[in-house]
C-alpha cells in the first residue's frame, strides 16, 4: 500500500466495511498470488474491482478471439461473449459458469469481504480437455481458415469444471486471508496515527488549560505584589508616628512619667520597631520582585561594612554567649555595589547565624578575593572569554550552629520559608530575610550559596564581582 490516503475514522474502517480492493491489497502481492494460481491450474484469471477496472491479470489473451477479431463475420460473436462475461454478477458463493458463442467457457467468481462486494474474478477462457469447437464457428465468415481455426482452438487453456471450481474455492479462501490481513494492517496503521492524534489533542487541551491557569497566577502574583506594596506603605506612615510619639513620651517631652509608664511605652516602641522592620522587609521584597528597587552602586571596600556589622551585632551575640568576629585582607580590591544594601545582606546573614548558634559557638565573617571562571555558553559569542577568571569578593558568614540540611538549602531563599523544626520556630522571625538577601545579591550580579561548616554549622558564601573585568589582567 504505497499511496497515501487520508485517515479514515474507526467507524468507517470497521462498521461500513465499504472498501475498494485496492485499499486492502497491494497489486504487486496480488499479482504474485494470481501467478501461482495460474501455475497450478493453467487457466487465465482476471480480477476486476467493483467499478469494473482491471485490478490484476494472469495468462494470455484468448488466441481464438484474436483470430476471430480479424474476421468481420465473427466479430459479433466475440463481442457477445465478452459482453456476457462482463455483465454477469454471481451472488455470494454461487459461481457463475458460462459458455460463449465462440465455445469458450468462463467461471465468474464474486469477491466479497465482510459481506460486501469487492469485485469479480473471471477465470477463463478455457475449454474442457476433449471439447471440440462449435460447428457454427467454421462457417462464421467466408474468409475463415479451418487450419488456423483448429490451431487457435488447440491453444485455448484446457480444464475441467471441477478443477475450476477448486480454483475458485482456493482463490476465495486465499483472498479472504489476504483481505483480512490487509484490513488488519489498514486498521493498525490508522489506529496508530489516530491514537497519537488523540493523545496530542488531549495534551494540547491540557497544556492550554495549564497555560491559562499560569497566566491567571501571574496576574494574581502581580496583584499581590501591588497590594503588598500599597499596604506596606500605608502601614508604615502611622507606624512611624507611633514610634515617634513613644520616643517623645520616653524623652519626657509631654511631661514626667514614672518607671512603670516608661516600661510600657518602651514595649510599645520596641514592638513598633519590630513591626516596622517587617514592613520594610515586605516593601523591599516587593520592590525587588517588581524590579523597582534602585541601587546606588559605587566602588566600595567590603571590610568597613563587615566591621560595622560586627560592631552593631556584638551586643546581641554577647547576650547569647556567641563570639562574633570579622577577618579580611586590608589590601583587597573594592567591589561594585550599593553599600547600604550590602550591609543589609550581611546583617541578615549574621543575625541568622547568631540566631541559630547556641551559646559557646562562633560566628565568623571573612572576606577574600576569589577568581571565578566566567560562565560561558559552549558555543556562545563569548567563547574567547572562556578561561578568563573574573575577580570577585567572597564573603563567608560561618557559624557553629544547627546547620541547614542539604535538602532544605534551595528552599530557605523562598519568601516566608523556614526550616520546620522546633528550634527554628523558637527563634521567631518572619522568613523574609534570606529571600531579600538572595534578590539583593542577584541585583549585584553576585551569587549566594550555602555550605557545611565542618564539623558543624552553616556557611553562607556570598560573591560580589569587583568592577572591571580587566582589573587583574
Amino acid at each position, binding site marked *: 500500500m504505497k499511496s497515501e490516503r487520508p485517515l479514515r475514522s*474507526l*467507524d468507517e474502517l*470497521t*462498521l461500513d466495511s465499504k472498501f475498494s480492493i485496492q485499499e486492502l491489497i497491494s497489486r504487486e502481492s496480488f499479482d504474485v498470488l494470481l501467478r501461482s494460481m495460474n501455475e497450478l491450474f493453467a487457466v487465465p484469471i482476471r480480477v476486476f474491482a467493483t467499478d469494473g477496472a482491471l485490478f490484476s491479470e494472469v495468462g494470455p489473451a484468448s488466441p481464438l478471439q484474436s483470430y476471430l477479431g480479424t474476421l468481420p463475420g465473427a466479430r459479433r460473436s466475440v463481442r457477445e461473449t465478452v459482453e456476457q462475461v462482463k455483465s454477469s454478477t454471481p451472488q455470494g458463493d454461487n459461481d457463475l459458469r458460462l459458455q460463449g458463442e465462440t465455445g469458450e467457457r468462463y467461471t465468474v467468481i464474486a469477491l466479497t469481504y465482510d*459481506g460486501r462486494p469487492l469485485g469479480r474474478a473471471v477465470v477463463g477462457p478455457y475449454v474442457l480437455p476433449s471439447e471440440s469447437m462449435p460447428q457454427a464457428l467454421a462457417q462464421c465468415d467466408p474468409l475463415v481458415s479451418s487450419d488456423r481455426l483448429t490451431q487457435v482452438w488447440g491453444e485455448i487453456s484446457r480444464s475441467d469444471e471441477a478443477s475450476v471450481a477448486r480454483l475458485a474455492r482456493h482463490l476465495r479462501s486465499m483472498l479472504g486471508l489476504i483481505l*483480512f490481513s490487509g484490513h488488519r494492517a489498514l486498521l493498525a496503521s490508522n*489506529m496508530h496515527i489516530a491514537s497519537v492524534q*488523540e493523545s496530542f489533542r*488531549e495534551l494540547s487541551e491540557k497544556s492550554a488549560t495549564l497555560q491559562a491557569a499560569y497566566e491567571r497566577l501571574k496576574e494574581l502574583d502581580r496583584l499581590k505584589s501591588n497590594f503588598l506594596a500599597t499596604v506596606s506603605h500605608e502601614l508604615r506612615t502611622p507606624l512611624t508616628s507611633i514610634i515617634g510619639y513613644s520616643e517623645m513620651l520616653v524623652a519626657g517631652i509631654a511631661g514626667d512619667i514614672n518607671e512603670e509608664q516608661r516600661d510600657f511605652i518602651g514595649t510599645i516602641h520596641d514592638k513598633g520597631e519590630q513591626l516596622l522592620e517587617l514592613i520594610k522587609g515586605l516593601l523591599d521584597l516587593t520592590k525587588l520582585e517588581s524590579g523597582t528597587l534602585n541601587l546606588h552602586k559605587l566602588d566600595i571596600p567590603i571590610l568597613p561594612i563587615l566591621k560595622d556589622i560586627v560592631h552593631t551585632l556584638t551586643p546581641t551575640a554577647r547576650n547569647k554567649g556567641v563570639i562574633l568576629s570579622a577577618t579580611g585582607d586590608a589590601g583587597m580590591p573594592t567591589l561594585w555595589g550599593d553599600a547600604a544594601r550590602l550591609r543589609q545582606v550581611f546583617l541578615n546573614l549574621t543575625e541568622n547565624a547568631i540566631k541559630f548558634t547556641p551559646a559557646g559557638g562562633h560566628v565568623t565573617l571573612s572576606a577574600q578575593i576569589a577568581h571565578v571562571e566566567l560562565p560561558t555558553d559552549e558555543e556562545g559569542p563569548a567563547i574567547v572569554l572562556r578561561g578568563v577568571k573574573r575577580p570577585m569578593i567572597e564573603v563567608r558568614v560561618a557559624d557553629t550552629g544547627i546547620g541547614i540540611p542539604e535538602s532544605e538549602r534551595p528552599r530557605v531563599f523562598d519568601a516566608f520559608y523556614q526550616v520546620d523544626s522546633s528550634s527554628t520556630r523558637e527563634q521567631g522571625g518572619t522568613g523574609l530575610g534570606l529571600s531579600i538577601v538572595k534578590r539583593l545579591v542577584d541585583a549585584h550580579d553576585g551569587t549566594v550559596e550555602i555550605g557545611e561548616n565542618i564539623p558543624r554549622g552553616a556557611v553562607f558564601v556570598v560573591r560580589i564581582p569587583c568592577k572591571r573585568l580587566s582589573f587583574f589582567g
Partner: protein
Amino acid sequence: MQLDFTARELTIKLVYYGPALSGKTTNLQALHAASSPEATGRLMTLETRDDRTLFFDLLPLTFSSEKGLSVRLKVFTVPGQVIHASTRRLVLQGADGVVFVADSREAETEHNAESFRDLRENLKQNGLSTKQLPLVLQFNKRDLPSVRTEAELTDMAAQGKEPVYLAVATKGHGVVDTFVGLLHLTWQTLDMRHGFTEKFGFESSAFFADVLGKLNDPRTLPEVLNSRVGRRGLRKEVAQ
C-alpha cells in the same frame, strides 16, 4: 449504529470495557468459539504485546430476522491498561451498547471502580452518559478464590438498574448470557429511538431465536435473560 434502509441492513457497535486483565479479550474469544461459521468471520486481534490488547479486538457477527433484515454486529474490546486512555476513547466512540467486564476478586474492586470512572469520563467526552447508554455488567473470574460473594453481588445488583451477569470467561460460562443481555437491551433502546419494529415489521423474537441458534445455545431468550443476578421480578417482555 448505521442503518441502510434500502439494503435492509443494520450495523450495531458493541464494546467490551473494563480494567486491564479483567477478561474482555477472553470473552470475545469465547463468543467466537461459540458462534457458527455462517454468523461470524475471523476474530481480529489488533496489535498485542504479551497478550495484552494494544488497540482493540474486533469480532464481526451477522444475524438476521425472518423479514430479511440483516443485523451486523461489530463487537470490540478496548485495551484496559491505564496508559491506553486515548485509544480507549477512540474505540468507545459511536458505541451502541457497552459490557463492563469486572474482575470479581475482592482485591480488584478499586481497579474496577477506577475503570468505571474512566468509562464515564470517556462517554462524557463523546457526549454520552452511562444513563443513556445500554450497559450491562459482568463479574468475571468467578472460579478464582477470594472473589466477592454471589450474595453480595446479587444484593447490590438488585439495587442498581443495570443487568448484572456472573461469568467464567475462560470456560465460556456466562459469556453468551452477557452478550445476549446487552444485545437485547441495546435492541430495545434502538428500537424505541428509531422504530425498527414499525419500519421493518421486525420480529424481535425471531431475531433472537436466530441469535441463540447461531450461538449454539439451546435456551430460550427469557431463560438467557433471566440468568442475570439480582432481578427485581420478571420484566414484561421477558415474561410473555
